[in-house]
């Protein structure tokens, strides 16, 4: 579904990604794990067209999307929940959700999908007229995921959804991610520093170190791998 081939991405003269190649198959959950500063967020921003790679190619459903405008990429079905959630603080919860459906014109379906995300996260329904900025961290993460779902993604990119959240909330969010994957057949690309968590729900995983992919395997195999255990699982 998504094929990243040898991309190099730069910030000015600083190279953040060195020949990164990743493949995502339709319907699976893949995870990209790695330490802070490894280049995980940059990888997602390259896919979304915000930080286009200087060389290499990105294909989505066999279409070359390298260097395409971000809004065009969203219209193809790739939607990102970025690191830090980035809720519009002065838009209400409902308006944030409306922005997720920005490219859609099917009004009736949009209404149903709003009800759907309210059923996933009933708290959001209670707070629908509240400015997004007044929500707690966990609620904001729920809203960020819901907002992305409103775009009806084929491929959902999630950047550290567990960051800074209490364990109960994290578990709830991981359950929803799993549910979205199985029920809606949405393909998931999950970036995490919390490798334990990510490898539990993922089918396959990639490990990134200083801008390079250093390992790739099934999630099960990575969980058993001695190096991964030592470096990322704290065992």
């Amino acid at each position, binding site marked *: 579904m998504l094929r990243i081939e040898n991309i190099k991405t730069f910030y000015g003269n600083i190279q953040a990604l060195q020949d990164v190649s990743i493949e995502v198959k339709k319907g699976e959950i893949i995870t990209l794990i790695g330490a802070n500063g490894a280049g995980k967020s940059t990888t997602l921003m390259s896919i979304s067209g915000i930080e286009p790679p200087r060389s290499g190619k990105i294909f989505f459903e066999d279409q070359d999307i390298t260097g395409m405008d971000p809004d065009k990429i969203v219209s193809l079905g790739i939607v990102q929940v970025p690191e830090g959630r*980035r809720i519009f603080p002065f*838009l209400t919860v409902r308006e944030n959700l409306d922005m*997720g459906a920005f490219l859609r014109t099917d009004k009736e379906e949009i209404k149903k999908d709003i009800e759907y995300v309210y059923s996933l996260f009933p708290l959001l329904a209670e707070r629908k007229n509240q400015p997004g900025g007044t929500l707690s961290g966990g609620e904001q993460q729920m809203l960020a995921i819901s907002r992305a779902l409103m*775009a009806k993604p084929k491929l959902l990119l999630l950047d550290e959804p567990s960051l800074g959240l209490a364990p109960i909330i994290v578990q709830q969010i991981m359950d929803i991610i799993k549910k979205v994957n199985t029920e809606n057949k949405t393909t998931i690309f999950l970036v995490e520093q919390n490798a334990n968590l990510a490898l539990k729900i993922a089918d396959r995983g990639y490990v990134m170190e200083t801008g390079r992919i250093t390992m790739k395997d099934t999630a099960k195999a990575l969980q058993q791998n001695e190096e991964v255990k030592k470096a990322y699982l704290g065992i």
Partner: protein
Amino acid sequence: MDHSYFFELFLGGMTRGSIYALIALGYTMVYGIIKLINFAHGEIYMIGAFTALIVSSVLGFTGMNPILILAIASVLAIFFSSAYGTTMEKIAYKPLREAPRLSALISAIGMSMFLQNYVLLAQTPDFLPFPDMIPDFKFLQPINKILNSTQFVILVTTAIVMILLTILIKFTKIGKAMRATSQDAKMAQLLGININKVITVTFIIGSATAAIGGVLISSHTGQLNYYIGFIAGIKAFVAAVLGGIGSIPGAVLGSFVLGWTESFGTGYISSDYEDVFAFIFLIIILIFRPSGILGRKQNDKV
């Protein structure tokens, strides 16, 4: 205390404030979206006024009804100002979007000087008379001393523009996209919002309201030259900063506050210092509220 004099100053200040508000909207909205003080915005207002002058001079020969002429002149003024505004954005600001803010600011000052001199060469530095196309309303005759027909039209038009703009920003899809973009442009892009389109729409709205302001003030003063955009532009900019740059209600509030300050200042203190009151007031407000009356510290604007 003379009540009728007070009301005259009050309504006079409100009229001024309305014009400032129509211009200040463009400053504040553009700042909200691309964090740029568009120094050439006053010139867009001036170009709107000149367009109306040219159109009404030409149509004046046809013997058409003055109100109809004014309407056609206003529509064309809006059209030309918007065309200039969006073109300016594309050639002078868009290429500098990733550059340091100072570069774009200097580009804006350059644009302002270019447009002033362009109109100066085309239209001479002299003040040209602007035809009075607003009829005298009968129902205003009893209070003619404190509110004339032109002022009445300015107040009503401004109110209508503000209401329409509020509806647009609050309830329409593009309005929400504008707010979203001003709060977090990158996130807006990640949801499929084309920020180039949002920026273009912002320049169109700002230019259109400035053009309306230009036509109205020229009808009020009865004259214009290439320099009117500079003076009014600075005043409106002060109003936008007073209210909190980036905030639309702030720009409107700041404009009225400024209009009243000038009106009461000149009326009760001295008309020699007309242009000084604005700046004294600006300094006082900014000492106590550095982000303006309604300004927010965060990145939200619009």
